[in-house]
């Protein structure tokens, strides 16, 4: 472990297996801490919000753990680098529609909507390896070629009118937004921690972002 590296906290809000994300930091020589303790979050240099599950449950868990304000303060106000993965990407939107309309963290003017693929003969959830098409710049794609495949598992996707923050789209019936960067906020629909070499490179790039 590199003791000089920035301290990174993975937010523990009981939504999915956080261990696989922690492991992806470990192979990059970084000891990320899994925690929901306010003092740990405040002292961390960078914050990761992973998650598998529904939008509604995710927000409820963040609320129950009283994490909404502290995350807003550290990420939106103090501009700490933030990595959102899958549900962690969804939750930064204004609104989600999974299991009923739910207010999100509203860091980005966006909504999270269900795939509407009835006429396309495509399965939901969208599961498997699919490629990303680069749009606007994303720091975390450094040294990863365009069109690379990553591992996706989801039924809902991100939709935003802030077009300049869209880093990539992916085609599944429609071209949906598969990653964004808004300043210090990085978010990915796919799972870097399950996408082998290119995925681990994204984690490495996040570790190397200047806090």
């Amino acid at each position, binding site marked *: 472990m590199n003791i000089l590296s920035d301290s990174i906290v993975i937010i523990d809000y009981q939504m999915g*297996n956080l261990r696989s994300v922690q492991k992806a930091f470990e*192979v990059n020589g970084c000891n990320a801490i899994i925690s929901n303790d306010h003092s740990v979050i405040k002292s961390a240099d960078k914050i990761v919000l992973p998650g598998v599950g529904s939008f509604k449950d995710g927000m409820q868990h963040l609320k129950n753990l009283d994490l909404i304000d502290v995350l807003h303060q550290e990420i939106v106000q103090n501009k700490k680098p933030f990595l959102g993965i899958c549900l962690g990407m969804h939750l930064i939107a204004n609104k989600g529609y999974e299991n009923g309309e739910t207010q999100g963290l509203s860091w980005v003017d966006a909504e999270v909507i269900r795939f509407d693929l009835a006429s396309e003969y495509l399965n939901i959830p969208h599961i498997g390896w699919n490629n990303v098409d680069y749009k606007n710049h994303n720091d975390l794609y450094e040294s990863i070629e365009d069109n690379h495949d990553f591992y996706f598992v989801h039924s809902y996707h991100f939709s935003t009118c802030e077009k300049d923050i869209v880093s990539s789209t992916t085609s599944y019936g429609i071209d949906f937004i598969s990653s964004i960067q808004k300043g210090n906020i990085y978010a990915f629909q796919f799972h870097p921690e399950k996408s082998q070499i290119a995925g681990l490179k994204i984690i490495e790039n996040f570790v190397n972002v200047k806090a």
Partner: protein
Amino acid sequence: MLKHRVIPCVLLKDWQIAKSITFGSYRTIGHPTSTARVYNARNVDELIVLDIDASLNGEKINTEIITDIANECFMPLTIGGGINTIDDIYSVLSAGADKISLNSVALKDLSFVRKASARFGSQCIVCSIDVKNIEGEYKIFNQQEGVVDINPLDLAKQYQDNGAGEILLTSVDSDGSANGYDLELIKLFKGRLNIPVILNGGMGKPSDAVKAIENGADAVAAAYIFHFSQWTPNDVKLALSENNIPVRSS
């Protein structure tokens, strides 16, 4: 574009990774951790590990080994064998698996598939169907019950309607034969389900995978070819790609 997957599917037996031959005899392949590490290094699309001790002897699935395997996997990992309760699923997922594969429990109790998918999501629930050809008719083969007179496609549809996210379809007759997949079997499934079908049993050379996908498989699983022949998962993907079947870049 979504890619077709090439998935090693191996067994966990006596603390070792093994491969079955027509579900009868077993050959040891190697240590679980090192096998998982090699597959990870070879960039396989996914890995399926079935705990044969747990399913055959009614033991609880070995979550310590699952944790060790999961620690080596930076790709999706599916674990099956001996999963009988919601708590079993929870402990296997907590050990680091991304999906679980149900077999006997789903055959006995369809409502378990529904409960499991409602709790953990369809994306996480793979239903495994073992098929045997009995005098020209496809029937279900179960490790405990033997041959069960159910049509495999009907069973797969029931699993799908109850929330299964994928079907792992294994031909017992072809298992470990290296004589190619049972193409007649996969033809019966072509276009009949809304969830992916992973065809398993019989791949002996890369062109077998091409035929499987051309005949309706969404993904192919195999073990024998990767351990007892010169072919690697990348050779298989190369053959698919040469036949205009989209596969993941590595």
